[in-house]
């Protein structure tokens, strides 16, 4: 079952490669210093940084995965785009960005070094680097898998062609190349995938007819969250609010360097604060594509009108992730098929480029400069960044080949966000908002949070935890994988926060002088008094929040 590709489709795909390589080549002349390569010269507007901020998160894996997820969970998937993203993005823009941006750091581990100490920085840098490379490799493997099964493309050609193109344009233009191609990807995703949802909804008679034909438990956000048995995700409103809305969401959006790095490239503090706030509006719009197409696929598949292949990694199970490409095959004529495939390709490649550009910064500034060569010229570090890009890509390809042979590795990697980001959010929150947080408290809290998250994951994975413990940890004797992930994140955060506070109470803290500019109460608040209210971050954050509330009430 493969999608037919015509000459005009190939032309569109080839043009994409020409465009991104051309952009990389063009930007090389503007990329000479460390700031140019690792922070895109710190000259981006809130619009550019905001779209890149969103695009770094908006990989094809997410789009394919959540479109397929909608077939299983219905509109509950919107939680991941609304309550599971927007409050965290607004919090980052309003409250956390002043500490990040004003301290002139290159990376999140760089903040940990300033606020705490070198060992906390190295611990986070190593875990982030490993997570990033693994994610990049898995991204590459799944891209090759999608194109192999649905388009009949050769594994090796898919992986090496996309990895090679990314290596070239990131090595040439650094973060600026990544940001430019991410924004191109953003427009290609809307141009290439929005139409498929529109045509599908029109085919089924419009939005009202689409929703009328669906089971009640698939069309609401909160009214079916009173009990885990009332919705397909098997989770209550408390799990959504604490696990997703608080820990996982805040952990990802406020501390994951992959996305926050884009805000660091802004030209001033106001633009940096507006970066996630601008992105929040586009994030809220994405369910139009993802959930819209997923619901259309559910209806068509139930009527036998949309063939979906079996999962190549789990024979006998429908491969819901293939729903979106199958909708493209159904609704798009030649030409538009090329645009849809290019949108997916761009999504895969931009996601991987984001991982690689974040990895080269963390490796260069937080590991190489700390552990290997402390005193070197700016030019030397740019060279290291370029070499690291190529090495990172090669390690990603190697990970992809490992995943190809042992695809159970993916189950572990899916949970890695909970190991790294959830406890880190507790460390950041306490570090930024409580002066009493000590370096020892932060380090041991982070270690305890990561270990507890990993232990809970293994406990369920290896069936060590029975229904009794499941009820204590997840408020359900038989939680779904998704519910377990959300509660696992919550416990990792809680353990990290508890240990950090306990250790901080008995260990010496830094002086106020050392914490100036890094902690609430010792950092001047951003002064927006001189700009009109229309240009103030708080104004747009309020508008975004109102839209979020309106959407949740609408689909209650």
């Amino acid at each position, binding site marked *: 079952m493969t999608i037919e590709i*015509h000459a*005009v489709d190939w*032309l*569109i795909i080839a*043009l*994409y490669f020409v*465009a991104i390589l051309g*952009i990389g080549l*063009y*930007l090389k*002349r*503007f990329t*000479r*210093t*460390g*700031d*140019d390569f690792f*922070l895109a*010269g*710190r*000259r981006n507007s809130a619009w*550019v940084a905001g779209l890149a901020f969103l695009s770094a998160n908006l990989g094809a894996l997410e789009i394919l995965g959540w479109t397929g997820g909608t077939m299983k969970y219905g509109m509950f998937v919107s939680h991941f785009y609304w309550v599971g993203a927007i409050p965290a993005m607004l919090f980052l823009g309003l409250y956390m960005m002043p500490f990040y941006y004003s*301290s*002139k*750091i*290159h990376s999140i581990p*760089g903040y940990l070094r*300033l606020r705490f100490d070198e060992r906390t920085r190295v611990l986070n840098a190593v875990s982030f680097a490993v997570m990033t490379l693994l994610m990049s490799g898995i991204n590459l493997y799944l891209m090759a898998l999608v194109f192999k099964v649905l388009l009949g493309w050769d594994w090796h050609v898919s992986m090496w062609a996309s990895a090679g193109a990314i290596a070239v344009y990131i090595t040439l233009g650094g973060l*600026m190349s990544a*940001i*430019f191609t991410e*924004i*191109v990807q953003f*427009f*290609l995703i809307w*141009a290439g995938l929005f*139409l498929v949802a529109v*045509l599908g909804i*029109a*085919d089924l008679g419009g939005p009202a007819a689409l929703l009328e034909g669906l089971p009640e438990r698939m069309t609401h956000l909160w009214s079916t969250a009173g009990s885990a048995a009332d919705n397909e995700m098997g989770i209550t409103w408390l799990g959504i609010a604490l696990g997703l809305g608080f820990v996982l969401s805040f952990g990802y959006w406020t501390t994951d360097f992959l996305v926050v790095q884009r805000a660091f490239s802004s030209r001033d503090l106001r633009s940096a604060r507006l970066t996630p706030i601008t992105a929040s509006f586009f994030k809220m719009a994405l369910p139009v594509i993802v959930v819209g197409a997923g619901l259309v696929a559910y209806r068509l598949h139930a009527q036998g009108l949309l063939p979906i292949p079996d999962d190549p990694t789990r024979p006998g199970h429908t491969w819901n992730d293939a729903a979106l490409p199958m909708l493209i095959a*159904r*609704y*798009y*004529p*030649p*030409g*538009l098929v090329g*645009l849809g495939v290019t949108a997916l390709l761009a999504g895969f490649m931009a996601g991987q480029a984001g991982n690689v550009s974040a990895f080269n910064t963390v490796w260069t*500034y937080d590991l190489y400069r700390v552990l290997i060569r402390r005193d070197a010229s*700016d*030019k030397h*570090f*740019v060279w290291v960044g370029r070499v690291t890009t190529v090495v990172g890509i090669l390690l990603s390809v190697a990970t992809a080949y490992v995943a190809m042979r042992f695809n159970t590795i993916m189950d572990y990697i899916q949970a890695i966000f909970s190991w790294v980001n959830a406890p880190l959010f507790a460390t950041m929150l306490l570090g930024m908002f409580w002066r009493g947080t000590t370096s020892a408290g932060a380090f041991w809290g982070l270690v305890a949070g990561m270990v507890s998250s990993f232990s809970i994951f293994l406990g369920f994975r290896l069936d060590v935890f029975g229904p009794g413990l499941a009820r204590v940890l997840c408020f359900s004797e038989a939680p779904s994988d998704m519910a377990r992930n959300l509660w696992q994140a919550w416990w990792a955060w809680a353990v990290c926060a508890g240990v950090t506070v306990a250790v901080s109470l008995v260990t010496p803290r830094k002086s106020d002088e050392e914490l100036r500019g890094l902690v609430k109460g010792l950092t001047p608040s951003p002064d927006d008094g001189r700009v009109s209210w229309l240009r103030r971050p708080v104004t747009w954050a309020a508008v975004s929040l109102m839209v979020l509330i309106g959407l949740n009430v609408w689909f209650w």
Partner: protein
Amino acid sequence: MRENHGPSEDRGSPLPIWFFVGLILAAYGAILMASAFLVSVPDRIVAVTATPPGLWWGGGMAGLGLVFLWVGLRGRGR
């Protein structure tokens, strides 16, 4: 101690990203419109929209691309 940033000498700025976005959207829009005339549309798609989607969708993309090209060229050197 804050981290040291390399000196940022003034070498001019690259063309705004909007220029490249405009170029790509306009090129893709033109190709889609041309393909709407050259390639036949399957019946199942005609049942949803009588006009070939490549024509109106490609036209919209080309128009948007031209707007972005204008914005990009206007912002050059700023």
